[in-house]
């Protein structure tokens, strides 16, 4: 990853950009900052938002708080809905959304389950994917969208609907698919012998068959792209998901469901050669 960051750094000297990284203090923040500096020497860290030319906010909370500085704001791993809301309010901001693109996940699902035809997708109000996104899908998979407002509805939906599906794909949605609901979702699905994909790495650890996810490196790379774009044109690129997400496979589940790829490396290789 460090190598990727280094390779992404421009070879010629440019005007320095004072950036303040707004995030909860912790190892993730320090690692993130170090990686940014290592990735681009033109980035200067500002000790506060007031002293910075732009602000990088990690997560929804930091993103929301950074708006007050009135400076260009790049949200990293923030919910799509929050970014869109703030942007509609006039915030000079852009975001790397939490999660990965629906098409990427479906492509991965297709690789893992080539015979799957009918995939169910449950979304809520804060999900990374909107109803429109799902409806805009033009791939060969048949998608069935289930809209739920809170976790209490999940069980009922799953019991009633899973039987007609080949697999279930979940978006990043902290309110719906957090740790509290994982067991419900996964156990219900597996008792009905239906594999679950997504929404991100920890869910795979909890039992999801496989998922693409935005890793720390992915986010740093994407952030560096945005910062270079900002330094070059003084404006952000369009908000969106990371372009090259990482992939993780739950080997046990993949084996249980006799999926095509049983480990992450094999799946990554397959994804890289996809058009």
């Amino acid at each position, binding site marked *: 990853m460090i190598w990727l960051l280094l390779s992404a750094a421009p070879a010629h000297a440019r005007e320095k950009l004072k950036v303040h990284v707004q995030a909860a203090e912790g190892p993730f923040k320090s690692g993130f900052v170090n990686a940014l500096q290592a990735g681009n020497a033109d980035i200067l860290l500002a000790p506060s938002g007031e002293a910075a030319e732009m602000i990088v906010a990690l997560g929804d909370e930091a993103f929301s708080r950074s708006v007050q500085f009135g400076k260009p704001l790049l949200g990293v791993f923030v919910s799509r809905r929050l970014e869109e809301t703030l942007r509609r309010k006039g915030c000079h901001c852009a975001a790397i959304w939490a999660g990965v693109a629906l098409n990427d996940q479906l492509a991965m699902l297709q690789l893992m389950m080539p015979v799957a035809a009918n995939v169910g997708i449950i979304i809520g109000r804060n999900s990374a994917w909107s109803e429109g996104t799902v409806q805009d899908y033009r791939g060969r998979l048949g998608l069935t969208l289930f809209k739920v407002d809170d976790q209490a509805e999940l*069980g*009922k939906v799953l*019991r*009633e609907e*899973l*039987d007609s599906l080949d697999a279930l794909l979940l978006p990043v949605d902290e309110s719906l698919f957090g740790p509290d609901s994982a*067991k419900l979702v*996964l*156990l*219900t699905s*597996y*008792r*009905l012998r239906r594999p679950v994909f997504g929404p991100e790495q920890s869910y795979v*650890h*909890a*039992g*999801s068959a496989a998922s693409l996810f935005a890793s720390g490196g992915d986010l740093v790379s994407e952030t560096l792209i945005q910062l270079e774009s900002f330094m070059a044109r003084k404006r952000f690129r369009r908000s969106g998901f990371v372009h090259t997400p990482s992939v993780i496979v*739950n*080997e*046990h*589940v993949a*084996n*249980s469901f006799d999926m095509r790829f049983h480990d992450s490396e094999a799946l990554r290789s397959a994804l890289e050669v996809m058009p």
Partner: protein
Amino acid sequence: MNLGTGIRKQLQLLGVVPALFMLGLLLVALTWQRFEDADRDLQALGGFMASQLASSSEYGVLAGNYSDLRRQAQLAMQQADLQYVVFRDNEGKVLLYEGRQDRVPGSSIIEFHSGIYRQPLLDTETMSVSANGGDSPVRIGEVVLGMSSSRLLARQKEILLASLIPAMSAMILGLWIAHYLARQIASPLNYLSGLLRTLRGGDYHVRGTSELQGELGDLQSDINQLASSLEEARVDQQSAINELQAAHKQAQTASQAKSDFLAMMSHELRTPMNGVLGMLQLLEQTRQSEEQHEYTQVALESTGHLLDVINDILDFSRIEAGRMDLDPVFFELEPLLDNCLSTFRYLAEKKGLYLKLEKDSLIAGRLVRTDPTRLRQVLNNLISNAIKFTNEGGITVAASTHQVREDWLDVKLSVTDTGIGIPEDKQSRLFQAFSQVDSSTSRRFGGTGLGLAIARRLSEMLGGTLTLSSSEGGGSTFTVALRLFFRSDITDDREVVLIGHEEEPHTLHGLVLLVEDNEVNLMVARRILEQMGVTVVTAMNGREALTKAEQRDFDCILMDVQMPVMDGMEATRRLRQWEREQGRVPMPVVALTANAMEEERERCLAAGMNAHVAKPFRRQQLSRVLTPYLTPERAQSGR
């Protein structure tokens, strides 16, 4: 008392062993049961935990959620006995292993397996299995719990301890009770046993005073009665013993008195007898008419008979008192037999009887070992009796021998007469003292009736028998059977006594000191000695004799024993002491005593005398005793 087999020990064993056995059985059964319970508890716990873990790990196994499985395992591992948890998928592949680092090596592990099932979907609203689920539980893996048996072992130890402590307490209590009861029972028995031992030790005064009840009380009472009886018996016995001792003492006193009387009588009879016999012998030497000579011979014969009677009485007395001692020596049997026969030949011929000796060839040249004096006495008695009771025919003395071993000879000496014989019914009385065939015999033939009794007793003392074969009118045969030690080497003269005929008195030479207080005997002895050719110096008592002996040497001293002033014994002792002090050669001293008892002879020799002649003596006897000291050679050598 041997504690190993004592009644107390046995009672303790009887009281304790069955109880201990039953206790042991009960303990084993209960402990076993509790072990089973503990094992069952462990099995139930393990099974329960495994099934619980299996049901709670369904999600983890289905989802491959190792965090969840680890969390489940760690929750389970809070149970201290659980050593490890293994989750496996349906193909046996290990999904997760969670084990303790501090596992005790070597501790045994009990594994519990439980299948993990994918459950059908439950509709939480209707609490029914979802119609969509439909299927029954499907096995998707298993959980394996490794339970340490240490807890079970610890539990078993606890059980064992919990069982053993009461058991030991019960055992100790049981032992104490058994010990107490055994002591309660054994103590009276030991007490009574001690009582009996005391009684056995001879203390019959002791009585049981313990407050015993029942059978033991009866036993103590019986022992007390027994002690009383024994005490009474001992008093009676002691009384009887005292009486017996008194009687014995009395008998001893009487016996001593008898012996003393016999000795005194012997002395008192022999002293005048010596005078009579001596005078008759002197008279016999004088010139006499035929009638006078005949009278003298009859008087000598009668005196001889009287002397025989006295000797018989003394011999029997000595035998009865156990004072008859034997003096066994090697000697030739043949001369003794010849000598015996020659003694009686004159008497037999006078009665017109033949007296002959028949002897086998083995007798000649053999030395047998026994007391010749006593054997001669037996034979003389038998031959004398035979002549006495035979009027026609004669007497045959037969001697036969049979060698039984290399150095042992069976000798049979028989005296057969052709006399009146002895009725069979009276033969048994014949050997009894003071008994003759009938009183008429005594009157007819004379005698004390002691002869055969003495002969039989002497034969037995010589190690043989004296038997009789006779019939009335058919003569009698008395047989002396002896088993004698013998040797053929007559050249070895050790202990050999030569037995020969009595010879006529030799003519003797020398100076003799005759010590005698009785004037008659002094005269008799002096005349006889002078007739033998000896010069005689006289003394009337020991002191006078001692004085004379110290003044001049004598070739021999004839010393009476019982004398006034100083007796012969004391005089001899003083003479010997004087000779030692002066360094002089001892003068021969021959006792001349009327005491014919054997003890007297020994006393004389002990006092330092050289020989002993019993009064009354015949000239031949005196000559034979004095010959060694008064031969011409000795006399001339001046001693």
